[in-house]
């Protein structure tokens, strides 16, 4: 094994730049894509000024709800600053949660709760205004409901406070949320609520880039499968097949170490979890990818054809895996796509992967098949 590793080092010495590039490509590519898209997403948020004139729970809640809206970047300002910044177009628009907001809501008063500033260039004013109005209406609606429930329940044995009714109303609203999106990536979650906008599934994106880089790294299977060289192996300690399988093992160990480093980097830079379960999943995934790439490599003799097919396979995986593009529409119509998807088990955090069983069996058949004349 050490001697095989030494022969591998002789080859790597000649191609260290391309090898290094493809080894780092999935990790660095994923981090860069996520950082870039996050930065673009943040830059494209509409700057909206919010003036909070009172610190009552209801006013603060409204403020936090606006703040959590993904397409809005809330800027805390005073009223004077708000006016000036809207005039100079530093802010798209500004909204003032006026003093007495909570009191007016509780009294069922719906007028003059929020004041706004806008300019002729406030392109997002109308949707932001509508959103804030709907939030305020939720508050007023809940308060009105609470008052009505109180009136109805007067004289009955069970009496609820206004606060209790409002809390219950919120619970019911959350449980029966009408507006939920099924726009989801293949990461195990069935759906995301509308305000959780996640552009990429980190491991999904990595898995697709990693599939491409693994296929390209495994071009050695074609480059080193020269029939003319096979006759040499017959007179050496290792048969051709043994040489290839030991190289497969070396690549698996090295790429798994890179995968573990990736998990650590994702934990540091992208706050992804770092657990033993992930290490096991990564190992199974790595074994699946490497054995698949190895078997695909064995099917080809022309390196350029192999490279072209590698890109097509990576594209196919990207589409059917749901790792890069949402795939609910596809997988709900064609359920067999999930079976074809080699990333399915990994992205769903399942240890059992049918692909690896198929690949290991095929490799075992390849190893024992027929009489190898030069072995």
């Amino acid at each position: 094994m050490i001697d095989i590793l030494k022969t591998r080092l002789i080859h790597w010495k000649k191609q260290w730049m391309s090898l290094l590039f493809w080894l780092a490509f999935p990790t660095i590519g994923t981090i860069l894509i996520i950082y870039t898209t996050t930065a673009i997403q943040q830059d494209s948020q509409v700057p909206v000024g919010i003036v909070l004139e009172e610190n009552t729970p209801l006013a603060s809640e409204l403020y936090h709800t606006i703040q959590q809206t993904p397409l809005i970047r809330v800027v805390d300002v005073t009223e004077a600053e708000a006016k000036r910044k809207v005039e100079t177009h530093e802010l798209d628009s500004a909204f003032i949660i006026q003093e007495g907001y909570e009191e007016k809501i509780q009294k069922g008063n719906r007028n003059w709760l929020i004041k706004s500033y806008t300019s002729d260039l406030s392109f997002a004013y109308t949707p932001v205004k509508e959103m804030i109005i709907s939030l305020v209406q939720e508050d007023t609606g809940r308060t009105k409901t609470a008052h009505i429930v109180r009136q109805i329940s007067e004289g009955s044995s069970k009496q609820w406070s206004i606060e209790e009714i409002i809390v219950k109303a919120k619970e019911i609203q959350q449980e029966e949320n009408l507006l939920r999106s099924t726009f989801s990536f293949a990461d195990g979650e069935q759906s995301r609520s509308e305000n959780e906008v996640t552009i990429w599934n980190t491991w999904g994106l990595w898995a697709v880039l990693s599939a491409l880089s693994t296929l390209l790294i495994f071009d050695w299977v074609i480059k080193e499968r020269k029939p003319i060289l096979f006759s040499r192996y017959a007179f050496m300690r290792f048969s051709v097949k043994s040489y290839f399988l030991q190289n497969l093992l070396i690549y698996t160990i090295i790429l798994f170490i890179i995968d573990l480093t990736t998990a650590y980097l994702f934990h540091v830079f992208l706050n992804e979890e770092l657990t033993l379960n992930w290490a096991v999943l990564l190992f199974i995934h790595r074994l699946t990818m490497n054995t698949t790439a190895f078997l695909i490599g064995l099917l080809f003799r022309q390196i350029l054809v192999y490279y072209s097919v590698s890109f097509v396979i990576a594209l196919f995986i990207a589409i059917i895996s749901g790792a890069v593009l949402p795939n609910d529409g596809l997988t709900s119509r064609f359920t067999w796509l999930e079976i074809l998807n080699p990333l399915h088990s990994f992205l769903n955090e399942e240890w059992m992967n049918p692909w690896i069983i198929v690949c290991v069996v095929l490799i075992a058949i390849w190893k024992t098949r027929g009489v190898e004349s030069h072995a």
Partner: protein
Amino acid sequence: MLSVESLSKSYGKKEIFKDISFSVQPGNIIGLVGENGAGKSTLLSILATLQSPEKGSIALFELDYKSKKREVRKHIAFVPQDIALWEDLTVEENMMFFEKLSWKKKGKEELKQLCSNVKLDRWNERVKTLSGGMKRKLNLAVSLIHDPELLLLDEPTAGIDLKSRKEIGNYLKKLALENGKMIIYTSHDMDEITNLCDQIICIGEDPFYQEILTETGKNILSF
């Protein structure tokens, strides 16, 4: 000693050769001649354990080819007609690469010496930049890393310049005489064959070869 008894081979219904028997003693150089398609390369492949005969038996130092194939291979060097080297690697890297996979461990200096024995001194040059003659010399040197007793060479001097041809020939002669190696090789160059070989095996029925070989006065076996 290599002992070949009643060897026959055919591909389907086509008989390639029949009942070939001969033996090779240490220090002997045997030339295999015959027209194209007569079965020289097939015989060489069988002697190299890369193909199996239909009938007959072969033993190398009393090791039977059928039952002790792996053991037999440790004593054989097969130099293919094509250049079986890594073109992108240097001479040194090729020697180091195949040494790592070899039965016998050799140091860098020993490998360098092996190259200089075949008059190959471009240690740091990439194979793809070497001349045809240099490549042939390296092809031979790589096959000798594990110190084999039996050398099987398939047209080792094909398509190379006269100087390289002479150098390879002289080295083979030296290996046989000084190191007691058994050498069997194919060639179309009759001068080379008659100069180098102690015995000539002619395969095929072409009278042209028979006539030429008779004139050489060498020990000739025809099949």
